[in-house]
């Protein structure tokens, strides 16, 4: 039987052509002077993100590094649309449109940016089998009309046909998260994000809780998906070596501020900021 079951799986490829045809000068996402304050009660506030701006080009991997408390996760959540900035705005260009405030493009403006979290165990509903977990994002219940139809069997087949692409065995289709290994769970989370055919995926410490060998598999998966589909990634991690491996450009955060942004080679080889140098010096080295 044809595993694709007559289903057209065209969306990721479509965004690839979109990525190539778009001139590099027009960004896919633009964050302008974003400020986020957390209210701690008794009138105290903590400025988690302090006037940070960045642009993301189609198909680009932007790495965000910093320690806990640097505001990198908050910035990621702003980019994904989970947090509304107190000041500044995030513009998204989806479906080849011009940059727009995403609130005006609801729900497409939100769906276009997907997120992969550190703890896949917490990010996946333990009661759902793999095909439903991933299927949810293919057909988010009547939220959007989707060309892939509504039949239950068909949705399962669509997911089944896609598993291999994310390095998942087809035997996993009916398994629940508790029956999956850490690496498999993270790949399910990646598949779920990708099958919403997003323009941008925000990965917040997406490989930090994985073993080194599994981490390599998931990093390779991100790299391959970017190359194949042209999806742009915002890759957040405290580990600058992991970020350097994947990112085209690196944005360094420290105490809510963006202390340095630049092409990966430039940030690694000629860091301008003292804090960046400190981060680089802290990377454990195999060469002694």
């Amino acid at each position, binding site marked *: 039987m044809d595993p694709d079951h007559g289903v057209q799986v065209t969306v990721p490829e479509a965004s690839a052509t979109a990525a190539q045809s778009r001139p590099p000068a027009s960004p896919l996402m633009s964050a302008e002077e974003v400020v986020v304050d957390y209210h701690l009660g008794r009138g105290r506030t903590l400025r988690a993100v302090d006037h940070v701006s960045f642009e993301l080009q189609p198909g680009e991997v932007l790495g965000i590094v910093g*320690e*806990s408390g640097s505001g990198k996760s908050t910035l990621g959540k702003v980019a994904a649309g989970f947090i509304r900035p107190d000041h500044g705005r995030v513009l998204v260009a989806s479906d080849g449109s011009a940059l727009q405030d995403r609130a005006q493009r609801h729900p497409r403006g939100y769906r276009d940016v997907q997120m992969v979290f550190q703890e896949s165990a917490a990010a996946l509903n333990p009661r759902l089998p793999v095909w439903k977990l991933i299927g949810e994002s293919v057909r988010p219940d009547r939220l959007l009309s989707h060309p892939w139809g509504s039949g239950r069997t068909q949705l399962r087949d669509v997911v089944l046909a896609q598993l291999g692409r994310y390095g998942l065995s087809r035997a996993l289709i009916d398994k629940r998260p508790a029956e999956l290994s*850490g690496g498999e769970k993270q790949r399910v989370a990646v598949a779920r994000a990708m099958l919403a055919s997003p323009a941008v995926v925000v990965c917040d410490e997406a490989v930090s809780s994985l*073993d*080194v*060998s*599994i*981490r*390599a*598999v998931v*990093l*390779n998966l991100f*790299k*391959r998906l970017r190359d194949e589909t042209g999806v742009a990634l915002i890759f957040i991690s*405290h*580990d*600058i*070596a*992991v970020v*350097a*491996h*994947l990112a085209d450009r690196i944005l360094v955060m420290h105490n809510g501020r963006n202390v340095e942004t630049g092409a*990966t*080679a430039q940030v*690694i080889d000629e860091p301008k900021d003292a804090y960046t140098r*400190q*981060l*680089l*010096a*802290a*990377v*454990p*080295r*195999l060469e*002694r």
Partner: protein
Amino acid sequence: MHQGETLLTVRDLRVEFPARGGVTALRGVSLALQGGRTLGIAGESGSGKTTAGLAAMGLLPPGTRVTGSIRLGERELVGLPEKEYRRVRGRQVAMIFQETSTALNPVLKVGDQLRMATRAHFPGSKDDVRARIVAALESVRLTDHTRVLRSYPHELSGGMCQRIVIAMALSCGSRVLLADEPTTALDVSVQEEILALLRTVVAERQLALMLISHDLAFLADLCDDLVVMYKGQIVEAGSAQSVISSPAHPYTRALLECIPSLHSRRGTLPELREYEAPSAQGCGYRHRCPWRADPCLEAPALAAVAASAERSARCWRSAEVLRQSVTESESVV
């Protein structure tokens, strides 16, 4: 292996969990911890590295079948009744866990927790206990005692909490310290501080430190000796420097290759792939091993690697693997 006496010796340790369908977590592990030295245990989830630490602490769940021997000086720990173990645990063997947030009680002040831990082993006057705690805090470079002791764990940073856990381990004078991924939950720069701290306390107090981690790069930084575990067995052992620079087991090579480094960016990382279906017979790593050959149908023993007596590997072709690693590391330089 020159300095310091042997403090803890593990011989042919086997651990089975009958409750979990007879899973064998350790299949004959032998190692020794020496004063003033750090032994790194590397391995992935399921390799048995954490079980090895828990076994030495006597913290395996009831019903676990443990055979072999764990000797702390003259005392045999395997089969030691819980009542006696309580006098050993914390006092002679202490453990530092990965999650400080779960190692410390969130509703008690740090000072109360340190006091309880210390008094459990040294019931003395208030002043004696306090002196011990202050000394321990000083050796972990926490000088602001009054404030630290009055704080709740959530009021302190992750790095400070980890220092307190280390202080708690030191306050009872244990000379054997087991640390299971002690810095994974911390930021890189804080990680560096904790590593430096561990290095100093090991030297100052001539502690024997067993450092468990999945990250070889991290272990390379701190350890004198290194043991690589795979599926409950030691597959390679030797001095950390020689194992890292010229691994003699294909698994160690694979683990080292898949670490992204600042200098080899943007390539595809080599993945551990399966060449054939795993089988219970022969070498446990065979199905993932690019070096597999006919002899691998029989399980190899942990044996000295031809070139040097202090290196050992569980591989029929370790001499060839080592030669290849040496050639590669020379071609880089």
